[in-house]
């Protein structure tokens, strides 16, 4: 403690999100001194997500969280909704999995709970404090500057989220490009639990997730989402910032359009807006992972762009990367070695885990998706609905004639060359995901 009052400690973690908390608690459990600095008035107060957290990775760090943490609902149904202008096709997978479930949570409550556990385990949590700068001496990070003071430490872990101004300060990250992030807006809509249960076909404590394609986002790299909380619905969307810029779209107007869609509107009818929010999502994937370590410093979670956007996974990659950074910090502390070489172990551990393996599997996804957004996120989605429209319409036109017309239109509207390009792109993508 005396060292802390001298403003010197063993590890400083910047950012009280899942990455920072997992990291800090891992270090504290090994008996080392760690300070977690969070700019919000409490952990979670600046954080926004869909969303759902995944039980398995959290259990690795907080084995009892399912009994103790503020959880909304256990998700038993995933729905994939492809919206046309008026119509929609919905695929649904229902299964009450209690082995590896996901839970809807509210970050203002959940992150706060995580931080309280960390405090109980010896992490010193400093809230309402912004780290403005890293202190560097002889090319080694040796501490942080807040508004009021300087704190020194052997290691600094950056878990400061998607905007990571600190990673930028030390040159680990380039300037971000609009296509490397999605801008997300969300509304939390109050609805009593009985209505939620009826509308989503649930019992108390059971939840449902909607992933939404098309609709107002047709042709853009963007997804909508709905999550059910105990007594509210979280509805939102995330769209590539490049698409919003190119098309000059106001994000909240896009969300208003989504809320009006005939498939979505009845789900939120008569609800009252509790809170509007916005946040960025890192979308760059594997190719945009920054430098992950340097002398005296490591970087975890969204700050390291560790998000698997296809699967809406972020909190799990954040927690596991935070934990791995924590484990490397412990080794470094035991050896008294905070060099770049020592901390490079963190990157190796990440590469051996699902975190980097998954991002590598999907390394080509964003490039292909950007290039073919008009077809994969537009034309084909429309055609799914066109197909079901044709298939379900009874109008005394002979079926063979209808099929022929559908196929003819399908090819004509997109033209053969574009279809081949799409097929090639899809093949390349599947190859890179499944083979190498």
């Amino acid at each position, binding site marked *: 403690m005396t060292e802390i009052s001298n403003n010197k400690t063993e590890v400083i973690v910047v950012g009280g999100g899942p990455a920072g908390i997992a990291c800090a608690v891992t270090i504290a459990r090994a008996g080392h001194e760690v300070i977690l600095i969070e*700019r*919000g*008035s409490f952990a*979670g*107060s*600046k*954080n*926004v*997500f869909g969303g759902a957290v995944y039980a398995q990775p959290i259990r690795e760090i907080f084995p009892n969280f399912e009994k103790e943490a503020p959880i909304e609902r256990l998700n038993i149904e995933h729905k994939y909704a492809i919206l046309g202008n008026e119509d929609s096709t919905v695929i649904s997978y229902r299964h009450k999995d209690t082995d590896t479930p996901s839970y809807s949570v*509210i*970050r*203002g409550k959940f992150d706060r709970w995580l931080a309280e556990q960390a405090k109980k385990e010896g992490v010193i949590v400093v*809230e*309402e*404090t*912004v780290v*403005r700068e890293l202190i560097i001496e002889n090319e080694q990070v040796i501490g942080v500057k*807040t*508004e009021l003071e300087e704190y020194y430490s052997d290691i600094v872990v950056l878990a400061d989220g*998607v*905007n990571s*101004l600190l990673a930028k300060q030390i040159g680990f990250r380039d*300037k*971000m*490009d*609009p296509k490397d*992030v999605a*801008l997300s*807006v*969300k*509304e*939390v809509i109050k609805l009593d639990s009985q209505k939620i249960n009826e509308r989503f076909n649930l019992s108390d404590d059971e939840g449902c997730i909607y992933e939404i394609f098309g609709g107002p986002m047709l042709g853009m790299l963007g997804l909508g989402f709905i999550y059910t909380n105990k007594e*509210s619905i*979280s509805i939102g969307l995330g769209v590539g*910032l490049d698409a*919003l*810029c190119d098309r*000059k*779209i*106001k*994000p*909240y107007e896009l969300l*208003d359009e989504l809320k009006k869609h005939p498939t979505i509107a009845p789900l939120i009818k008569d609800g009252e*807006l*509790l*809170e*509007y*929010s*916005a*946040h*960025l999502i890192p979308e760059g994937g594997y190719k945009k992972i920054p430098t992950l370590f340097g002398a005296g410093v490591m970087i975890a979670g969204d700050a390291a762009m560790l998000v698997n956007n296809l699967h809406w996974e972020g909190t799990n990659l954040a927690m596991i990367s935070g934990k791995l950074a924590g484990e490397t910090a412990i080794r470094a502390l035991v050896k008294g070695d905070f060099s770049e070489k020592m901390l490079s172990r963190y990157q190796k551990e990440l590469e051996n885990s699902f975190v980097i393996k998954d991002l590598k599997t999907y390394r080509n996804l964003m490039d292909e998706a950007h290039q073919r957004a008009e077809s994969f996120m537009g034309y084909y989605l429309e055609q799914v609905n066109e197909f079901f429209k044709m298939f379900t319409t009874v109008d005394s036109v002979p079926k063979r004639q209808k099929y022929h017309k559908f196929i003819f239109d399908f090819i004509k509207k997109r033209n053969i060359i574009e279809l081949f390009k799409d097929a090639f792109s899809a093949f390349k993508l599947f190859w890179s995901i499944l083979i190498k």
Partner: protein
Amino acid sequence: MTIDDKLFTVKYKPDESSHLRPDLEKCKSCKSKICTTICPAKVYEWEEGEKKLTVNYENCLECGACRIACEKNCINWEYPKGNKGVTFKNG
């Protein structure tokens, strides 16, 4: 529901000075004024008469989109002070 109604649901503790400082000279020659479109909190407004960008920083949701999207890359963008800015209860 207008964006102002939406923002009314957000809890803020505004700072006395702005944490968002675009280079207002550069804004004058900016073609897209893209910040006025993509900002989810309608923080930026272009006053055609005065040829000036107003910054309603009190409404900022601290997302960071304007920092990345700015046509001239000219926004000096910081987080508000530790006890200031937005507090999400349902994020």
